[in-house]
C-alpha cells in the first residue's frame, strides 16, 4: 500500500499547465519548411507561442485541453512560380543560298527559376487553436548513463534513474480559426507584384499593355495557385493542406508531451537529505528508494501515489 499520496486540484493542474505553456522551449516553437508542386514552389518560416487554453480533468481518467491558442510571432510564406520559358523572334528575314543573313532578335522570357518570388508576411494575422484529450502516463526511466555507478555516484553525476510523468495525447485537434481581412489584401496584391517584379523596368503605359497581353498568364497563375474568391479559405487550405503545417505542429506538440519532456519527474532513489560538509568532510546525501509510483485522474483532482 502506498505510504505517500500527493494530490493536485483541477485549479492547481491548470496553474501547472500554464507554467508549461509559458515556458515551452524554443526548439519546439520554431521551424522552417519548403517544398515544390510542379511549377509552384513554397517555403514557410514559423515562430509561435501559446496562449489561453484550459484544463478539465475528466472522470474517464483523461485530461481535456480546450482552446489553446497558437499565436504566430513569425509566419512568412515564400511563394515562387517557375513559369515555363518561352521565346519570341529569332526568325530569319533574309536568306541567301540557304543561309540566313538577317534574323530577327530572339527574346526569351521566364528563364529564371523561380521566375516569380513573392514573400507573404502573415505574422500576427492568423490564430490557430488546439484542443485534445491527454492521458497521464508514469514511466520508470532506467538511465543508460548510470551503468555500474552506485546510487550515490549517479546522484552526484546527475545520472540517476527517474520516475517520469508524461502526457500522452488520445487525440489532438489543430484548427485555423481566424484569418484576418488584411490577409486578403496581401494576396490580391500578388498579381500586381508579379507584374512589377517581371516588368517593373517598363513605363506605366507599357505595363498596362503587358497586363492586357499577359492576362492569360495572370489567369494561369491564379489557376496554379488555385486562388478562389474566398482569400481566407485559400490561405487556410494553403497552410492546412499544401503545407500540412497543422499536423506538423500538432505532431511537434504531441512529441514534446509524450516523449521529450516529462511534466514531472522524481529521482530514484530520492534525496531526502542533501549532502553537507562537516569538519571538512563532505557527507553523502541520504537517498530513499521510491517504488510503485502511480497516477490517477478523476473529474476533481489528479492523485499521485508512491511507496518509500
Amino acid at each position: 500500500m502506498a505510504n505517500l499520496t500527493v494530490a493536485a486540484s483541477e485549479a492547481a493542474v491548470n496553474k501547472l499547465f500554464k507554467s508549461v505553456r509559458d515556458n515551452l522551449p524554443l526548439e519546439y516553437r520554431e521551424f522552417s519548411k519548403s517544398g515544390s508542386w510542379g511549377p509552384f514552389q513554397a517555403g514557410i518560416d514559423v515562430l509561435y507561442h501559446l496562449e489561453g487554453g484550459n484544463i478539465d480533468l475528466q472522470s474517464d481518467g483523461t485530461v481535456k485541453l480546450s482552446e489553446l491558442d497558437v499565436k504566430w510571432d513569425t509566419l512568412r510564406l515564400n511563394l515562387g512560380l517557375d513559369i515555363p520559358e518561352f521565346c519570341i523572334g529569332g526568325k530569319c528575314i533574309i536568306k541567301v543560298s540557304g543561309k540566313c543573313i538577317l534574323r530577327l532578335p530572339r527574346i526569351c522570357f521566364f528563364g529564371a527559376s523561380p521566375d516569380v518570388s513573392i514573400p507573404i508576411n502573415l505574422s500576427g494575422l492568423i490564430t490557430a487553436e488546439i484542443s485534445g484529450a491527454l492521458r497521464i502516463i508514469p514511466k520508470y526511466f532506467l538511465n543508460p548513463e548510470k551503468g555500474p555507478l552506485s546510487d550515490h555516484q549517479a546522484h552526484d553525476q546527475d545520472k540517476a534513474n527517474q520516475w517520469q510523468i508524461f502526457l500522452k495525447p488520445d487525440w489532438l485537434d489543430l484548427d485555423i480559426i481566424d484569418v484576418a481581412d488584411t490577409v486578403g489584401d496581401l494576396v490580391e496584391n500578388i498579381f500586381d507584384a508579379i507584374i512589377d517584379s517581371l516588368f517593373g523596368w517598363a513605363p506605366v503605359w507599357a505595363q498596362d499593355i503587358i497586363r492586357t497581353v499577359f492576362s492569360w498568364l495572370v489567369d494561369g497563375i491564379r489557376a496554379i495557385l488555385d486562388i478562389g474568391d474566398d482569400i481566407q479559405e485559400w490561405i487556410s487550405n494553403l497552410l492546412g493542406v499544401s503545407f500540412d503545417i497543422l499536423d506538423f505542429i500538432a505532431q511537434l506538440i504531441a512529441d514534446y508531451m509524450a516523449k521529450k519532456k516529462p511534466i514531472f519527474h522524481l529521482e530514484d532513489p530520492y534525496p531526502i537529505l542533501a549532502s553537507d560538509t562537516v569538519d571538512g568532510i563532505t557527507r553523502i546525501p541520504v537517498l530513499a528508494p521510491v517504488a510503485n509510483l502511480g497516477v490517477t485522474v478523476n473529474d476533481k483532482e489528479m492523485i499521485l501515489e508512491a511507496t518509500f
Partner: protein
Amino acid sequence: MTLTSFSDLYARVHEDGINNLISQVRRQRPSLFNYGTSAFTANTKLLCEPIVVHPEVVNQGNPLVSKLDYLPIPGYEGPYGVEFFFQLTNLELDFHPGNKFNLPAELNLPLAGQRVALTAKLCAGIPCPDPRILERLTLEILPERERKKQETNEKQGIPFDYENINCFCLEIFGTANFRYVGNQGDEYLDLFLVGLEVVDIQPAGLENSLECYVSTALKLGILPKLRMAIKDLVLDNEDYYFSISPSPISANIPFNPSIRTDAVHVFGQIS
C-alpha cells in the same frame, strides 16, 4: 469530498513511510545518531550497539560517530579527560491515534489529538579508567606551586580497559507535533518535541536531569536535521515558475499539518 476540496495541493505521508525514511537516515548518516570521544570515533566496535551502515558511507570515508570533547575531571588540571559515548537507536514514530507501542503514564495518556508518539533506545557508556594508569597519574600530580608549568590545552582520553566498558541502555518515550518553519515559499516540515520520558531511573532528580539533557539534544541536535522541505515533498518544481506554501488555517483546515489516521497530512497552495 476530495483530497483537495479546500486546497490546491495535498500530501499525506503514512507513519510507515516516515519510519522507513528515518531508517534510511540512520544507515546513511550514522553520525547523526552516534556520538563519542576519540577512542570511540577511532574504533566503533567499542560501542554498545553495532552501527548498521550503508556501504557508501564507508566508501566515501564519512564518519560513523560524531566526535565529542572528553568529560572534564573536576579539580584536575592535567591533560586527561574521561572518554564516553552515547547512541540513539531504534527511533520510531507512531502517529495519532497511536497503536504501535504503549506510552508510559507520565506522558498523559492517551495520546492527544494532533500528536506523534516516539520511542527510541538510548545507549551510553563511560569506561572506567585503567586503575594502574590512574595510580601513576596521581603520583604525577605536582604540588600547587609547580602546576602552572604543567598546564596544557591539549586534552587526551584516559586509557581504559577495552574489555570492560560499562554499557547501559534506556528506553525513552516522547510526544511531538509537526509544524512549519522557514520563510514564506520555502517552508520546512519540522518535528517538534513536546514531552519526553526516560523509563525507570532513580532518584527522580537524576531522571529529570537526564530527560532534560536528552530532550535538549533531540530538539537542538537531531530533529532539526530531519526536516523536509514542503516543496520537495509535494513537487519537484525547479523547472517551473510558481511557489508552494502551506494553506492558511481555516474552518475547513483547522490543522495544517494535521496528524490523524496514522499519517501526517499537509495542505498547500500554489501562487
